[in-house]
């Protein structure tokens, strides 16, 4: 670990990656790509967690609580992807599209 790197470097990358994901959710129309951008935002938050965990050294060791929280985030994200993609498949079966601008009525 190089000492020339500051916490700001990592926080900045994380913030910009989050903003890119947010822009993707707002701009894109394909449901699957919107879902991928959501995953990108989750991963960006993970980088913040790890950076702060490494920054907060206790007894010469990083604060591993951040890693534990990240473990839970990855698990929840995996469960979310499984259910979300199943919902997208079910939606595609009834509407024949994944374009969010064409899915605009509650009942079909």
């Amino acid at each position: 670990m190089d000492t020339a790197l500051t916490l700001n470097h990592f926080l900045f990358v994380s913030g910009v990656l989050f903003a890119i994901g947010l822009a993707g959710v707002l701009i894109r129309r394909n449901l699957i790509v919107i879902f991928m951008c959501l995953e990108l935002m989750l991963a960006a938050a993970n980088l913040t967690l790890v950076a702060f965990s490494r920054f907060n050294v206790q007894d010469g060791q990083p604060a591993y609580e951040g890693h534990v929280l990240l473990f839970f985030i990855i698990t929840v994200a995996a469960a979310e992807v499984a259910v979300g993609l199943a919902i997208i498949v079910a939606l595609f079966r009834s509407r024949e599209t994944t374009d969010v601008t064409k899915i605009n009525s509650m009942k079909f």
Partner: protein
Amino acid sequence: MTFLFYIFAALALVGGIGVVVNKNPVSSAFAMIVSFLGLAALFIQLDAYLVGILQILVYAGAIMVLFLFIIMLLDVEVEEKRAHPFIASLGAAGIAGGVTLLVITVLKRSGIGDASFPKLSPVEGSGNTDVHRIGELLFGQYWFPVLIVAVLLLVATVGAVVLSKKQLR
């Protein structure tokens, strides 16, 4: 070491931009894998070896394969013409730029991140790897959240199976 950080940070950010910019969902998925590889390298640079490997195995491996599988199953069409006017995309890009400016302002004002990372003093002997420590925390102090997550995974599996059935009632 510092230039490695810039290389992998650029990899993560360029991959992220590729996800948003690419019109073809398959290209988006591959750009996403590039972004996750860059992120995993950043994790490893932060001495988080287990998390970096998990990022590659779970995200770049399992989750992105699931995405690609669904894209091919649904035979998703390429977004050809834009439905929104150009000004709407510009507004969304403006919101993202605003978030970036907000991050920069907060980092500058608070000054919390100006310090460099403190040195680690690794303890001699086995049982002091990060895998060992995280395992101790997961199965010691945080045993109950692990149980809840196990139930969550079961619910997600059952939910995915129920949702993919032909007849939804």
